[in-house]
């Protein structure tokens, strides 16, 4: 009985090692999996520009409508105005609307 147990233990040990090595060899020689497309290579879909929204007629039939326009990529430098320094002064206040 004792010998049988000892043989069984050896058999399990040897079988485990052989199975592991066999699996290793099979995996090493199997074809590589196909690579998934990475997210960085996915190209964004070019969406068509939205047309301006038509009259919504908030108050009257010929009331205000939305319009949309495109900005030039490089606005002319002479169109820009620097922010005036904030300090007490006389004269018309420099009013400037902006998010805060």
């Amino acid at each position, binding site marked *: 009985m004792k010998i049988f147990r000892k043989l069984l233990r050896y058999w399990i040990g040897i079988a485990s090692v052989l199975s592991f090595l066999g699996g290793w060899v099979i995996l090493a020689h199997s074809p590589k999996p196909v690579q998934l497309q990475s997210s960085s290579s996915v190209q964004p879909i070019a969406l068509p520009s*939205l047309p*301006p*929204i038509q009259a*919504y*007629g*908030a*108050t009257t039939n010929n*009331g*205000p*409508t*939305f*319009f*949309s*326009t*495109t*900005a*030039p990529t490089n*606005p*002319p430098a002479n*169109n*820009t*105005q*620097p*922010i005036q320094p*904030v*300090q*007490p*002064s*006389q*004269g*018309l*206040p*420099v*009013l*400037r*609307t*902006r*998010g*805060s």
Partner: protein
Amino acid sequence: MIMETLHLRAMNTDILLGAEGQADQVRAGFEQASKSIHSGENRFTRFSEESELSALNRSSGKRFKASPDLFSVVALTRRFYHLTRGLFDPSILPDLKRVGYDRSMDVLRELGPSPLLETLLANERPSLSEMDMDESDQTILLPPGMALDLGGIAKGWIAEQAANILSKYTTACAADAGGDMYLVGVPDGMEQWPVALEDPLQPENTLTTLKVDPGAIATSTITKRVWQQAGKNRHHIIDPRTGEPAISDWISVTVIAPHAYEAEVFAKALLIAGPQEAEEIIRHSGIPFTFLAIDQEKKIWGNQGIMDYSYVGSETNYAR
């Protein structure tokens, strides 16, 4: 008669008062208007435990006796919550804190990124429509777990109050609270107030100058009051539907309206709404306001009413 300006800092923003009149009267008006601004800030700030707003927020679940000013502003928030179909919602305060805006912007900028806070998510918060207000005894009942942020609407309300006080001493005046302003009368020799519109993508530049009649103008943008939290870019315009900083095609919306709090509220609501939903918000509002929006691609959007506020010269940086 002289035109004088006074600069002060309040509500974590730059305040500019401008007024035309007799010198001594203008200065007296500045003094009273400044007191009103500081008093309003102390009442409506959420960054001080001593403020009446903080006391209201601590009282959630119990009826709170409010001052006439607080009651008025909270009543306005409820009205605009319905008019904007919930896009303007002062009860997003737990979300603002969760995304890191739990301290004043001045402190936030100084201390850098803040950790992600565990607070109720948008769909777990009680709805503003559950808030109960009793006009007869000026009490407010916030449902348990609700806390209000009156930041923008209070700023507009305070600016308008200050301008109205200043106007009692002067012939024409303006109160500009960080770009949200209320104008009373028109300076001598002018037909409108010239108001520069800051380019949201290049703040050092002026996009154009609008000629604005007495009334209000305000701008809301996602390019200001920005910070980082756990590697994420955050801004202070919360979409109440998600509880997260709004994702919109528009980056800046300017509104011209009769009242400063209306301009402030609808600038924010349209910014969250974007072009897809703006039409519905405008139609539903019933308020005659005009808007101009700038989108991510530098396109300018607006309703035809904006053309009445014709640009001064042809100095717009963006083609119309």
